[in-house]
């Protein structure tokens, strides 16, 4: 191991100060469940590392209709919160108990596909992210945060400090399809939120994971379901658009072809379930 210094800042200002002093040479690590395996294997050889476990970024609270999640809150903390059921479902479907006790919500936004299951749910929930650096803080929609495979809007001297999730009562659905029932990389992950106006879909969020360079929105499919009552025909067309529009890849888990097929299938199943739920509620 070549790490020369390991810092455990006790506050956000201290953490930002360290980033300023050491620049891009300083590797940031929260739960370490992505960073440590790479260091253990010698794939990542950072000179200096900053751990976030003591930086006070692990709070999780509801304020003014918003769930505010500290970037270093663990997946276990997310599983325990009652405010946003879909996030519980996403956490439950992520990794294993020990990993959830270590891995953080913030770290999930930096996890390359097929990881990033919680990020997919956050995308469907219109989450916002707060980035902080020496020049102060900025908030942006999560949808604008991702810019490519392993790339995002975070500047070298910035930290992700918080994720905000508006608390709403819209019907949501989270489906992670993998090769096993639990603790498995995704073939595809689908997170959906529909806003209804009577029996018409007023707005839709369809987020997909493991079928693109980062968690993505199926915008064409969203457009196709808005203004409809989710007839079988609409669902078929929207599911086909989601399958068409995603950018799956081949890895040890699944082929590009299979991921695309399963994207269509699970978008269609999710829409069917949400349509039935709406009928059940007499919309």
């Amino acid at each position, binding site marked *: *191991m070549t*790490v*020369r*210094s*390991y810092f*455990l800042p006790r506050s956000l200002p201290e953490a930002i100060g360290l980033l300023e002093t050491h620049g891009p040479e300083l590797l940031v690590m929260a*739960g*370490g*469940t992505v960073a*440590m*395996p790479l*260091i*253990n*294997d010698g794939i990542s050889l950072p000179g200096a*590392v900053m*751990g976030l*476990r003591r930086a006070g970024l692990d709070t999780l609270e509801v304020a003014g209709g918003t769930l505010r999640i500290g970037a270093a809150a663990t997946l*276990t903390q997310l599983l325990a919160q009652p405010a946003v059921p879909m996030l519980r479902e996403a956490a439950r479907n992520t*990794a*294993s*108990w*020990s*990993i959830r*006790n*270590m891995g953080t919500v913030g770290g999930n936004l930096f996890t390359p596909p097929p990881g990033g299951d919680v990020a997919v749910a956050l995308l469907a929930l219109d989450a916002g992210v707060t980035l902080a650096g020496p020049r102060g803080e900025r908030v942006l929609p999560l949808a604008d945060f991702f810019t490519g495979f392993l790339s995002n809007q975070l500047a070298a001297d910035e930290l992700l400090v918080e994720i905000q999730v508006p608390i709403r009562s819209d019907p949501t659905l989270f489906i992670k399809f993998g090769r096993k029932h*639990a*603790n498995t990389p995704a073939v595809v992950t689908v997170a959906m939120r529909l806003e209804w106006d009577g029996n018409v879909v007023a707005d839709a969020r369809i987020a997909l994971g493991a079928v693109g360079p980062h968690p993505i929105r199926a915008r064409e499919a969203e457009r196709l379901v808005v203004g409809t009552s989710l007839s079988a025909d609409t669902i078929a067309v929207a599911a086909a658009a989601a399958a068409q529009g995603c950018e799956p890849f081949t890895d040890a888990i699944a082929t590009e072809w299979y991921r695309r097929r399963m994207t269509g299938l699970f978008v269609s199943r999710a829409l069917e379930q949400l349509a039935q739920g709406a009928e059940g509620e007499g919309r």
Partner: protein
Amino acid sequence: MASTIVAFELGGREVEVMVKPMTTLQSALRDQLGFTATKEGCRQGGCGSCTVLVNDEPMLSCLLPVEDVAGQRVTTLESLTPTQGLHPLQQAFLDANAFQCGYCTPGMTMLAQALLDHNPAPDRGDITQALTGNICRCTGYGPIVRAIEVAAQAMHAGEEGQPR
């Protein structure tokens, strides 16, 4: 590469290790303190053989810089084992033939202990859910799940003061 001294609680005792930056808890336990029950499988977070409890919660010692547990309470299989005889989980693993090579056993046992701390009467589903991150390559999971069921009953009965 200045070393630092890290102090933490290990099985009820205060211990100190002198470590290079980002030494893993796994390495500090095994290589410096001689606590070799905690195993080293993948060092990738993928096998669970290095599971220890930090403040009673299961974590993977291969992914944990020892600096992160300064001042915290670490429990390994050594501290679960009574001075005389066996812990009910160990006895149940033995009775159920829940190990062959035994490499996964310490991790399985620590995870099972954490599960029983949270849920003294887990059903089969609770047990299999809890165990998803711990891999056994030779025994198979049937005997392990059965051993945990039996241990849960024994520990439950023990707590209620009934004979085992």
